[in-house]
Every structure is written in structure tokens, then in C-alpha cells.
């Protein structure tokens, strides 16, 4: 299918909806491409960071002499050496105007605030020499008490930053009565205490680490007129802005390139101290430099995610009709307020009410500074926490009322006739059909059969008990309407930009301000453009991730690339068609009003005359025969600011087997029916759903960043920070029920985070459901075998213990050798 003339104008020829193999996969899977770490420039130097092993300590002295004289070392620099030139890392979202935030310099000179913080950087001719010399940097610390436990830190027992006088950074509140979107929640709860049901729970969102495949890496070349930074980031455009704001270098003097990037999951949505240090060192020395972190550094010093305590009060009438929901969150920021920082829990503020018709709602969030690694966005960012809380609560309510968890949901959810629906949190949900998705999911899951089996196992007292977990989630994505962001005090807009360049030969270059790091934009966006302009899929090239090429953008996160970036693309393409029409009319000697565009062809109404898009492109290029006053270009751009968020939803059903003897859990079946609107590429969607599910399931069962009493990250390698592989997950039963979004042209909804947001509560609900008859109504995440076993044996109580203990010492090498401790990764001896 190359010539547009060959394209039959039928539904089946449409690119949208085809499961095109991904254009980018050959180079991504074989690795034959340009990542940051394989970019080598003439004369390039290498960096290694010297990191603090202490969570909180005064820096008494830093002796760099021995390191400076080591082989192949060019320089050793501290924060004091770089001075103001090292700049600062910015917080783009002060959630309140009174928010307290410690200044975040990339290399502090007086005090370190978390284990893994950089205090000096070694510059050498090879990465190995830099690392060797880093061990020769002698830092004297005076250890300070560290603020570690979140609740104790919220009570200011130990101060993470003594100068601030408190650990409380900001308090953010939404109240439906004050906002005029609902009633008074305290009254609803009081009433329910008298004549209804009140469910009070406290849930823990454990700390997670975004474990992307490619560790973070940055190359800076200061030798041109613009300083060029290649970096493994999700946000080249935002980063350029932040670099300028944080360093004082004019934005016009900075070019940021995100080459192929190996995953992010929010973990590369940051302006990192390491990027700032690399930038400052390159400028200082006038030479290209590269820094690539080790996996240990990545786990320890890359930003972490989640980490909240959620205190929840739900009120309902006796029959299970919900009347109010009050949320009190305590959120751990870690040592600094990151680029989004406290904005992450705030993104959840509008989602606790989920798909249910709560008449009254209140959300309170206290963000807290501690001496742990700073936290920020991690896949779902705020919405998984909210979804977990409400979906766990709905199961608890069902248990209290004594009905099936699906029944209690149906009683309270928005019905499909009620869309568009304005929620108690003030959002307008545009579309959806919770009933249809649920019906489809139940049938595919075999809900009734599994419930019957569960009953049989319970009655027989089987060693293996079966539990069924429900999660009827929705989320807000497609970040974000700029006005809303403005009202939330966010420091930027939420629009997206796209450009279409029509080349002389009829080929098309697309620029997009979104920045893919594994999602498959090149494929999906090509499909959209192919349909829109009637050109061949193969003829479309997607250019992105370079502030010089795709100069304008807000990058990729929050399931926004398709629903916001895709809409910008559609609008830019439509402008191309509008620009081509007068040229076509001129060449065809027809009136513009008679020109019709369809399937890549400009035809004259009522005739068989016409010209292909490629012919118009050539005519614009030669410009030999254009109508008067018409520009010699079809190229077009569009900047699209979404009018609303985007609300995918779905019904997820999970069956878990629990071995009551060992506490071991095993997934038996997982069915999801998601409504993500129009599907551009089913294969890519399936990949997003599978990966998203795995990540959400992983929070429920496996992942947890654990610190010891002195603030050292115990789960500091993949031996102890457990990630699943395909051996640990099952074949997911993935379906869709489509209601098109009404807020974008293509009718799409975001899918990047849906699986992660939905699955965590489905799994935990299933585990709890399997043992509820044993008196258990909660098991803290991750639901480790030990926690499940303790819950069963201590009648519930043991399932809520915090994880403690040392790492397993598999690589401890104490046999007759003097060990050296790698100070570059902050490991404590």
C-alpha cells in the first residue's frame, strides 16, 4: 500500500484499529539504537558521584586530594567548588502558597538529607577511573538523628531539616460543601453513626521504586552555541525549562534531547540532581561529559513513589447507599519537594469518590518531609492510591452489609444514562458504561462459577482458599486543562503541540511534543496521520524528544500522549488539508467550495477529477503554479489545550488462591474489561494493559522499598526489591467495552496507567476475600506470604506489620578477604 490512489476508501483499509507491529521495535529490542549511555563525543569525560551513606548528617569536611591525584582523574568537585553554578532543582507545583520546601541544591555543602545524596563528583577520562577515584574521596560526617517513620515525622519528633522547624510541608484540602459540589461530610458521618454504617480504615501505600529498564544517564556537550544535553528522561521540554530556571542559563542556550529512552513509569519525570551536576561540570570544564548511574544508585537516589498513610471514613445508609467519604492522607515527600512533589497526592484528590455518587466528600492531605529518598510520580501518580482506598472500602462496605461486592457497587455507581456526570469532587465525567463493562467482565471471568467454588472450599475447610477481588475503577488522565492546573497552582500548562511537515515527495514528518520512552508513539501516531491525511503508514515519520526538532511540548506522563498529543496532531493535520484545498482548487480549476477531501484525495464534487495529497505537496514545493497570496507550504502546527480530563474506566476481576498453611498466594484468573474509548492500535493497547497490570499486581504482592532504623535502603538491589518476571504472572484475560470520549476528535481515552491503577485493589480484595471468613479484613501491602500467614494465625492483627529486617546477604563476600566498601553507591559498611 504505497500509492494513495490504491487505497480503497473502505473501513477495512483504515489504519486506526489495526494491530500494526511497532515501527520502533526492531531498534529497541535489538538495542541497535542511540541510548544516552552509548553516545560518545570527542574528548568526552566521565563522572562518578560520591554519595552519602548517612540519611542525615552534617558534612564536616570533604578531602578530595587523594582522588585528584589518582590516575586519569581530571577534576574532583564539591558543591562548594561549583558554588551557585550548580544551580537548584525546582519544584514546579507548590500545592499551597504557604508550602515549606527546603532548597534543593544538587550537591549540598553543609548537610545531607538522605542516604544516597551526592556530596562530590569525580571527573575522569574513563568511567572506571572515575569510580575508582570516588572511593578515595574522604568525607567526614557528623551523623544527625534522622526523620524516618512517616507518622512520627508528621508529629515532628525528629526534624528532617532542622532549619525549617517542622517536617510539615503543606496541607491541602478539598471540601465538597465549601466547593459547592456536595454536602457536609462530617454531618453525613455523624448521621450514619446513629442510623447507618460507618467504615473506618487506615491503609498503607508502601514506598515503591520506579524500576525502569534503562538506568538514568546524561551526556552534556557545552562546546556549541547551545549547550546540548542528551538524557534518559520523559520530559525533555519541561527539563529544558527547569534547567534554565534552576541554573540561570537562558532557555535559548539549552537544547535537550531524549534519545531512545528505556522506560520511565514516572521515574524519569524529574529534574535530577545528577542532570544538574552533569550540566554544571560540563560548563565548568568546557568539555563533553557523561554520567550513567549504576542500578544501586538508581534504586537509592532516583525518586521513589507512593508512600502514604490513608485514614478513611466512609458513611452509608443501612442498605449500603453511600452518604459520605472523608479522606485524611499523610504523604511522604522524602528529603526534598520534587518537581511535582506534593502534587502527586493532590492528583488523587478528585478520584477517591471514583464512580460512585457520594453526596458529601472531603479530602485532606498533609505532605511531610523525611530523611528518605525524595518521592514523586510513579505510574498512576495519586490515582492508584485513591482507587486502592475506595475499592478496598467498597468491599468492606459490601461485607458489612452482607452483599456481593458487585451489588454494593451497582447500587452506588453512576449509570450510563447519567453521563455527562458532575461528581462530588467537581469533575465532569464525559462518558462510560460501568454496567456493560461489568456484565462483560463477569461473563468472561466465570464469576458465578468461581463464587461457587469459593463456597465449596470454605465449607470443606480446604487448605487452599479462593478469593475474588473486584475493582471497578475510573481515573482522570490526559493531563491536563491548563486552567485547572493554574487553579491548582501548578507552574505550567497542560497543552500539547504537534507539527506536520509535508515533504516534496509526499512523505510526511510529524513533530510531537510528547516524548515516548517505550510506548509506541511512532506507530500509533503514524496510524492516525495515515488515516487523517490519506497517506501510507510507512510514509509517516514521527520526530520527537529533541527541543530543536520538536521545539514545543509538555512531554509524556499522565496518560496524555494520545488524548492530548494525538488531538494536537489531528488538528495540525486538519490544517494541512485546509491549506491544500485552495491549491487543489487552483490546479483543478474548480472552486474551493467544491473541493472534497477523502482518503488522501482532493476531488471536485460531482466529477471524477482529483489530485492526491502527494501531488499537492509537490505543487507546494515547486511553487510554480500557486494561487495568488497562498504560502508555498502545507506545513502546519497546532497547540491543543484539553477542555477536560479524560476518564477511562473498567471492571477488573481477580481470583487469588491462598495457601492457608504457608500464607503463599497464587493468582488463578485475572479478567479486565476496560473502556479506553477508540482504540488506535489493539496490540499496543494490550501491551500497555499487560504491563500496567503487572505493575499494579506487583504493588499488591511484591514490591516494597524498605529502610532500616538508620535510614539505609535495605531493599537496595533487585535481590531484595522484588520485581516479577513473566514466570510470576499469568495470562491476563483482557477485553474492552468502548464508549467514545466526547472531549477529543478521535474519541480516545488514556490507557497508559489504567492497568496499574485498577489492579492493585483487585488483587488485595481477592486475597482478603479468600480469608475473610477467618476474621480478617485487611492485609497490608505487599501481601507477602508472611503477612498473610500472620493474619491467619493472629486473627487479623499480624497482617498489618511493617516490613523489617536486613537484606539477604547472597553476595556478601566475607571469606578470607578484606572487603572494600563502595562509597560511590552509598552502601553502609
Amino acid at each position, binding site marked *: 500500500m504505497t500509492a494513495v490512489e490504491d487505497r480503497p476508501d473502505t473501513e477495512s483499509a483504515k489504519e486506526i484499529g489495526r494491530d500494526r507491529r511497532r515501527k520502533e521495535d526492531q531498534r529497541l529490542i535489538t538495542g541497535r539504537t542511540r541510548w544516552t549511555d552509548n553516545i560518545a563525543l570527542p574528548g568526552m569525560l566521565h563522572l562518578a558521584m560520591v554519595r552519602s551513606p548517612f540519611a542525615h548528617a552534617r558534612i564536616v569536611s570533604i578531602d578530595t586530594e587523594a582522588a585528584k591525584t589518582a590516575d586519569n582523574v581530571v577534576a574532583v568537585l564539591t558543591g562548594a567548588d561549583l558554588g551557585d553554578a550548580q544551580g537548584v532543582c525546582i519544584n514546579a507545583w507548590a500545592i499551597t502558597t504557604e508550602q515549606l520546601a527546603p532548597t534543593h541544591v544538587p550537591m549540598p555543602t553543609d548537610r545531607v538529607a538522605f542516604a544516597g545524596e551526592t556530596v562530590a563528583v569525580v571527573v575522569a577520562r574513563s*568511567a*572506571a577511573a572515575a*569510580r*575508582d577515584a570516588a*572511593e578515595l574521596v574522604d568525607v567526614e560526617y557528623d551523623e544527625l538523628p534522622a526523620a524516618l517513620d512517616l507518622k512520627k515525622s508528621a508529629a515532628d519528633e525528629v526534624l528532617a531539616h532542622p532549619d525549617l522547624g517542622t517536617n510539615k510541608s503543606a496541607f491541602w484540602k478539598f471540601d465538597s460543601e465549601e466547593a459547592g459540589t456536595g454536602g457536609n461530610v462530617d454531618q453525613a458521618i455523624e448521621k450514619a453513626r446513629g442510623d447507618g454504617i460507618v467504615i473506618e480504615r487506615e491503609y498503607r501505600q508502601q514506598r515503591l521504586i520506579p524500576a525502569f529498564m534503562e538506568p538514568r544517564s546524561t551526556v552534556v556537550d557545552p562546546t556549541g552555541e547551545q549547550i546540548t544535553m542528551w538524557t534518559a528522561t520523559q520530559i525533555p521540554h519541561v527539563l529544558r525549562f527547569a534547567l534554565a530556571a534552576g541554573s540561570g542559563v537562558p532557555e535559548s542556550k539549552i537544547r535537550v534531547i531524549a534519545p531512545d529512552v528505556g522506560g520511565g513509569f514516572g521515574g524519569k519525570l524529574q529534574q535530577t540532581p545528577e542532570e544538574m551536576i552533569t550540566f554544571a561540570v560540563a560548563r565548568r570544564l568546557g568539555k563533553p561529559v557523561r554520567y550513567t548511574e*549504576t*542500578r*544501586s544508585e538508581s534504586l537509592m537516589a532516583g525518586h521513589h513513589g507512593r508512600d502514604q498513610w490513608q485514614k478513611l471514613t466512609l458513611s452509608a445508609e443501612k442498605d449500603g447507599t453511600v452518604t459520605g467519604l472523608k479522606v485524611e492522607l499523610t504523604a511522604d515527600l522524602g528529603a526534598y519537594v520534587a518537581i511535582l512533589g506534593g502534587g502527586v497526592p493532590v492528583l488523587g484528590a478528585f478520584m477517591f469518590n471514583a464512580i460512585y455518587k457520594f453526596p458529601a466528600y472531603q479530602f485532606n492531605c498533609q505532605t511531610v518531609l523525611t530523611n528518605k529518598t525524595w518521592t514523586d510520580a510513579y505510574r498512576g501518580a495519586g490515582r492508584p492510591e485513591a482507587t486502592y482506598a475506595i475499592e478496598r472500602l467498597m468491599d468492606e462496605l459490601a461485607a458489612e452489609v452482607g452483599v456481593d461486592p458487585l451489588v454494593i457497587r451497582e447500587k452506588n455507581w453512576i449509570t450510563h444514562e447519567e453521563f455527562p456526570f458532575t461528581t462530588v469532587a467537581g469533575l465532569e465525567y464525559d462518558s462510560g458504561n460501568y454496567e456493560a463493562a461489568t456484565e462483560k467482565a463477569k461473563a468472561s471471568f466465570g464469576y458465578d462459577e468461581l463464587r461457587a467454588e469459593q463456597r465449596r472450599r470454605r465449607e470443606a475447610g480446604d487448605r487452599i482458599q479462593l478469593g475474588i477481588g473486584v475493582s471497578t475503577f475510573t481515573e482522570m488522565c490526559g493531563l491536563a486543562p491548563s486552567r485547572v492546573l493554574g487553579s491548582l497552582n501548578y507552574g505550567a500548562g497542560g497543552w500539547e503541540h504537534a507539527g506536520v511537515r509535508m515533504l516534496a515527495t509526499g512523505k510526511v514528518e510529524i513533530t510531537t511534543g510528547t516524548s515516548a520512552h517505550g510506548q509506541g508513539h511512532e506507530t500509533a501516531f503514524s496510524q492516525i496521520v495515515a488515516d487523517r491525511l490519506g497517506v501510507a503508514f510507512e510514509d509517516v515519520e514521527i520526530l520527537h524528544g529533541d527541543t530543536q526538532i520538536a521545539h514545543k511540548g509538555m512531554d509524556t506522563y499522565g496518560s496524555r500522549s494520545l488524548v492530548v498529543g494525538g488531538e494536537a496532531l489531528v488538528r495540525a493535520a486538519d490544517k494541512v488539508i485546509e491549506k491544500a484545498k485552495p491549491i487543489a482548487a487552483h490546479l483543478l480549476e474548480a472552486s474551493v467550495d467544491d473541493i472534497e477531501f477523502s482518503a488522501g484525495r482532493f476531488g471536485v464534487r460531482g466529477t471524477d477529477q482529483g489530485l492526491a495529497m502527494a501531488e499537492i505537496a509537490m505543487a507546494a514545493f515547486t511553487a510554480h503554479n500557486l494561487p495568488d497570496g497562498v504560502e508555498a507550504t502545507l506545513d502546519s502546527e497546532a497547540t491543543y489545550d484539553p477542555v477536560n480530563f479524560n476518564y477511562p474506566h473498567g471492571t477488573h476481576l481477580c481470583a487469588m488462591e491462598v495457601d492457608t*498453611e*504457608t500464607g*503463599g498466594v497464587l493468582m488463578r484468573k485475572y479478567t479486565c474489561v476496560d473502556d479506553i474509548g477508540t482504540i488506535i492500535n489493539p496490540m499496543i493497547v494490550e501491551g500497555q494493559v499487560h504491563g500496567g497490570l503487572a505493575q499494579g499486581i506487583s504493588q499488591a*504482592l*511484591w514490591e516494597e522499598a*524498605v529502610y532500616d532504623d538508620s535510614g539505609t535502603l*535495605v*531493599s537496595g*538491589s533487585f*535481590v*531484595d526489591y*522484588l*520485581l*516479577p*518476571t513473566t*514466570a*510470576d504472572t499469568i495470562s491476563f484475560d483482557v477485553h474492552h467495552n468502548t464508549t467514545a470520549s466526547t472531549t477529543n476528535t478521535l474519541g480516545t481515552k488514556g490507557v497508559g496507567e489504567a492497568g496499574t491503577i485498577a489492579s492493585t485493589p483487585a488483587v488485595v480484595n481477592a486475597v482478603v476475600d479468600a480469608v475473610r471468613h477467618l476474621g480478617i479484613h485487611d492485609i497490608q501491602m505487599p501481601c*507477602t*506470604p*508472611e503477612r498473610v*500467614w*500472620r493474619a491467619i494465625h493472629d486473627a487479623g492483627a499480624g497482617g498489618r506489620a511493617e*516490613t*523489617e*529486617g*536486613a*537484606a*539477604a*546477604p*547472597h*553476595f*556478601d*563476600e*566475607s*571469606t*578470607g*578477604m578484606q*572487603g*572494600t*566498601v*563502595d562509597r*560511590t*553507591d552509598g*552502601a553502609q559498611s
Partner: protein
Amino acid sequence: MIPTQFEYVAPATVQEALTALAEHGDEAKVIAGGQSLLPVLRMRLNAPEVVIDLGGIPELRGVRDDGDAIVIGAMTTHHTVLNDPLVAEHAALLARAGHELADAQIRHRGTIGGALAHADPAGDLGAPALALSAQFVITGSAGSRTVPADEFFVDLFETAIGEDELLTEIRVPKHTGWGAHYEKFVRVAHQWPIVAVAAAVRVAGGTIAEARVGLTNMGSTPLRARSVEEALVGQPATEDAVAQAAARAAEGTNPPSDLNGAADYRTHLAQVLTRRAVLAAAGA
């Protein structure tokens, strides 16, 4: 993840390797499959000046029949061991455990000698070696000596191998016709066991005639559950009988507490897993 600089020596014979060891003493480390040593070096938990690679010594590889025992060269990979017909016939327990060890890539590189010499109490091969009463052939400049499994594992990451010696062979007495099972309890598939139990039993006429039970990660070395073994002899291979014997599994153990479980949980697991392992080994 760059190790400190070291000198690399690749001997072609055991003798050459021993000479290199003698020359460099405690500055040197031998490398087998590197699956434990390389992470140690890359995380800079150790920094030997010399690394002596055993990979080029053919005499250290392979499985052979030696009358009442099979002999496995220290450098035989996990993959080879678990697919070897002699192992399957006479020491099935080793193959069962090998199947559960790490993942396919690691099993193709890692070696039986390296795993046993590393002596990680959570390693999957120690308990089976102990249960099968393996003999460890340790070679030094003065010649070879044979150490029984009971004496080979000394402590956490510590064996009877001297600083200037090499583990060269593992001799496993034939357990032909014994049923075998390795019950490994993990949270994710590629993990070291939280606790595992290695069981080999000889069943005659529905009755357990002999039993060998080894425990992984229930102390600073692999352990033998002798009281379970004794209690099993003469018992029918039934759930109740085996459960009674398995209740003794944690006697004399000193399990660790770490991220994956506290000691009391491991104690409980040892009993449950012992029952399951023995029943599976007995084909019940």
C-alpha cells in the same frame, strides 16, 4: 557497576591454578561461573587483585560413573547437572534442586562447584548435597583430600576449602531408585529460597525404608533434619504419618530473620515444606 581493576589469570590445568593460588595467596579469588563472584566485584563488596578463572580447565567439567558413586566435576554447570542422565538415575534430588535454582541464563553459567564453594545458606544445592551425603574432593599443592558434607559447610559463606585449595569434585553416593523432591518456597520465581527442603526417600512396600532430609536457609549452613529422617523410617507414606515426623523439622535449627521472613515464620515453613517434600518424594 564497574569492579576495581584486577589481574586475570586463566590456568589450563588444576596444577597451574594451584600454583597461581599459592603465588597470590589472599590477594586472589578464583572465578567459576561468576554468578556470585561477579555481582560481588561489581558492587565492590570485594576487590581481589588477581582473579583466577577455572573456566579453561577441562578436567574440572563433566559427570562420570565411579562404581557406588557418581562424580561431578566442580566446573560442571547447573544446566549440565540437571540434564545429566547419571544424575537423574542416581542422584535425582540434585537435579530437582537444580531445576529450581535461579533462571536459565544463570543455570547455563553457574557451576555446582561455585555454588557449593560459595556456601550461601540460601543456596539450593547445599541441602541436597548434605542429604545425599556427598563427599567433597578438595585439592591443594599437597594433593587431594575428601571431606564429608557434614564437615564441608562451616559457617555462613565458609567451607572447609583452604585459602590455597580448590574444590575439584563432588562425589555423590548413588541413591538409585530413591524418590526425590525439592520443595522451594519463594515469593518470585527467580529468588533464593526463603526456606527449602530437600527430601530423598526409599519406599518399600508402602513403607518408608530410608529417608534423607536437608534444609535450606534454616541456619548459617545447610542442615540435615536427622530427627525427621529417623522418625520417618518404618512409617507409611501417608499424610498423617509424615506430618508427625515433619513436625520435628525445625529441631536444632537457627533460622535467620530478614526481609522475607522472621525466624518463627521460617520455623513454621520448615515443618510444612518438609511434610510436602517427603510426601512428594515418596510419590504419595
